[in-house]
């Protein structure tokens, strides 16, 4: 009875949201939780015959989740999943309330959720997932998450509490890999990783957080470092060493900024992603591993789905704005930003570059991380740079100290859009690198601007 009330309240709030267009997903969840504090467990746990899959980690949650969703779609498996930005407890409740009928039943075989790292223990204790994927762990919004080691410890405790959950972990991130090391009852984690990568690399990389043996604090020896602390490593004298991946991406080859391809283990079949960057290889191989071990799908079907996938909302999305090709590349921490620089900016030296840095709550109030990103690698960039957002001056200052010249500052968003227009021409390429809330508002300005342009021409 109580959960029925909770579902009804959440559904009513969701409808009200749609009418007012406010689009917030936390409020309906909050209402439902007020009426029934166990509502999430009741709606999710044991409710999905095909399994409950949770994706977490610092970077790549949204894209990995989207790739798994595409695989489910292609396989004809019905599923529910939460949207980006609704990855905390209340967002999940809202998602569930929306797809549940009043008797608490869901017409879907699989539940697929991306979950914020800080909410992992609470959410997973409630829903008891069949599979947990951890993409990577990097310093990220330390004002919200606290220290990495604490997050890692909370994950490890959680894993031991859920002995039958399959753990799909990144073998190339020492901290993440160590979470599956020496588990109780000889339980084995499933590992994914990358075998080789010969593409461009960041020189001024200050983002390696976990380059020490998590158990002995001895420095790890890397035979290959791809970015940050991600790579192939081994410990001293039998110390912690990279576990052999069950799913390894081999022959990784990047083609411009359009695509990247690889093969899984010794397969002759090639995965050719319609999005660039080594980080997307990690996202894909993680999704591949889940499709194999949790969904038991065939290689051909998985590869077909991966090849058909495009970038997630605001993550390397290509849009058209007043006849300019605009790439929106969400940035939120130094590792992610370095990946963007590594993938897109090292070769694109004469395009318009726009950084929009907000420090609203959802972005993280702290912008110290800008100083750890490798803007020094942009040395030699000859194009124009515009910076905006609530912390436009901080961003400009960061670029000044990196030695980059020709930077314009515009904290006002409408004027920023004008400045972008003025500093680019039709058919020119514009790279916009916004933080989360800046991404939402800039994206909507671009989409509505594009519609105006279309209307004009019709």
């Amino acid at each position, binding site marked *: 009875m109580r959960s029925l009330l909770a579902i009804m309240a959440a559904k009513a709030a969701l409808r009200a949201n749609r009418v007012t267009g406010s689009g917030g997903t936390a409020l309906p969840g909050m209402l439902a939780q007020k009426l029934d504090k166990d509502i999430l467990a009741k709606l999710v746990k044991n409710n999905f015959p095909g399994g409950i899959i949770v994706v977490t980690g610092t970077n790549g949650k949204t894209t990995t989740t989207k790739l798994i969703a595409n695989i489910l779609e292609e396989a004809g498996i019905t599923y529910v999943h939460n949207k980006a930005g609704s990855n905390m407890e209340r967002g999940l409740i809202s998602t569930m309330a929306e797809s549940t009928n009043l008797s608490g039943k869901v017409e879907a075989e699989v539940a697929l959720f991306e979950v914020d790292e800080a909410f992992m223990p609470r959410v997973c204790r409630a829903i008891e997932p069949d599979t947990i994927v951890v993409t990577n762990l990097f*310093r990220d919004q*330390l*004002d919200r998450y*606290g*220290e*990495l*080691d604490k997050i890692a410890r909370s994950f490890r405790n959680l894993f031991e509490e859920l002995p039958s959950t399959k753990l799909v972990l990144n073998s190339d991130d020492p901290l993440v890999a160590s979470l599956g090391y020496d588990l109780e009852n000889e339980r084995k984690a499933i590992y994914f990783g990358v075998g080789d990568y010969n593409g461009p690399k960041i020189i001024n990389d*200050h983002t*390696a*957080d976990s*380059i*020490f043996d998590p158990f002995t*604090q001895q*420095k790890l020896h890397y035979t290959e470092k791809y970015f940050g602390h991600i790579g192939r490593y081994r410990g001293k004298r039998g110390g912690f060493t990279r576990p052999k991946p069950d799913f390894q991406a081999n022959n990784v080859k990047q083609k411009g900024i359009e695509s990247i391809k690889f093969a899984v283990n010794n397969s002759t079949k090639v995965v050719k992603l319609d999005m660039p960057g080594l980080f997307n290889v990690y996202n894909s191989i993680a999704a591949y591993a889940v499709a194999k071990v949790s969904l038991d799908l065939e290689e051909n079907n998985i590869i077909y789905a991966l090849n058909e996938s495009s970038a997630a909302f605001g993550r390397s999305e290509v849009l058209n704005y007043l006849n300019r090709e605009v790439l929106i590349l969400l940035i939120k921490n130094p590792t992610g930003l370095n990946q963007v620089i590594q993938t897109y900016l090292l070769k694109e030296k004469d395009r318009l570059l726009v950084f929009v840095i907000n*420090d609203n709550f959802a972005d993280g*109030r*702290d*912008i*110290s*991380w*800008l*100083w*750890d990103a490798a803007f020094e690698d942009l040395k030699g960039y000859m194009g124009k740079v515009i910076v905006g957002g*609530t*912390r*436009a*001056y*901080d961003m*400009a*200052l*960061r670029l*000044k*100290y990196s*030695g980059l010249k020709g930077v314009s*500052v515009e*904290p006002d968003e409408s004027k920023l859009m004008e400045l972008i227009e003025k500093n680019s021409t039709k058919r020119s390429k514009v790279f916009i690198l916004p933080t989360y809330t800046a991404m939402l508002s800039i994206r909507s300005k671009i989409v509505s601007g594009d519609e105006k342009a279309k209307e004009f021409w019709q």
Partner: protein
Amino acid sequence: MKAIKIAHMYPERMSIYGDFGNVLALSQRMNWRGIKNETVMVEVGQKLPKDIDLIFIGGGQDKGQVVVAKDLKSKSSQIKEFVESGGPLLSVCGGYQLLGEYFISNDYGQIEGIGLFNVISKATDTRMIGNIVVQSEKFGQLVGFENHSGATEFIGRAQPLGTVKKGFGNNPNDKLEGVIYKNALGTYLHGSFLPKNPKVADWLIRQAIKHSGQSFKIKELNDELENSARKFAAKRP
């Protein structure tokens, strides 16, 4: 002209929080003035060179601090002699705590510091997080971002870096932030600290020049952008 030598201590374990920005600010502000300088990274187990002119130590996770504390002990007398002879030093957050008498952490018990500063720190249940504005007699308005659960208190005589106008500072109670002893500073301000507070950066540079046995004056730089960034930061919630 003799090159100014900066020691960046423990960048691998103690640089979780924009700490490269501090070293970058020092080095660029010397580069822009044509002052030769070099930065030496000193990791655990490595020697601190004898001819350094400036020491920087940043913040880290508790786990890293345990290892670093041990190593610092072996360099304790060298660092103290450096500071006693007027050598400039900047320590931020975790580094600041380790230069005090001790730090009682939640997970690793009491971590011994080297006692350069007359301060002690204890882990608390309140995480002191947010933008912080400090008024300093020596440097004027200082801005940054703090994120610590360790609360620092003075024992005996110690001089704070400034008074907290917004935020927490050393601890939730006395509205004091940081410490100054001779030319050594301790602070909780990230942000990074030095780029938005160029008066502190230039003061450290002046002390470093003096310590290197040279006596030239440094010229003023155009700090318009630095000052705008500081003004904007001071207004953020």
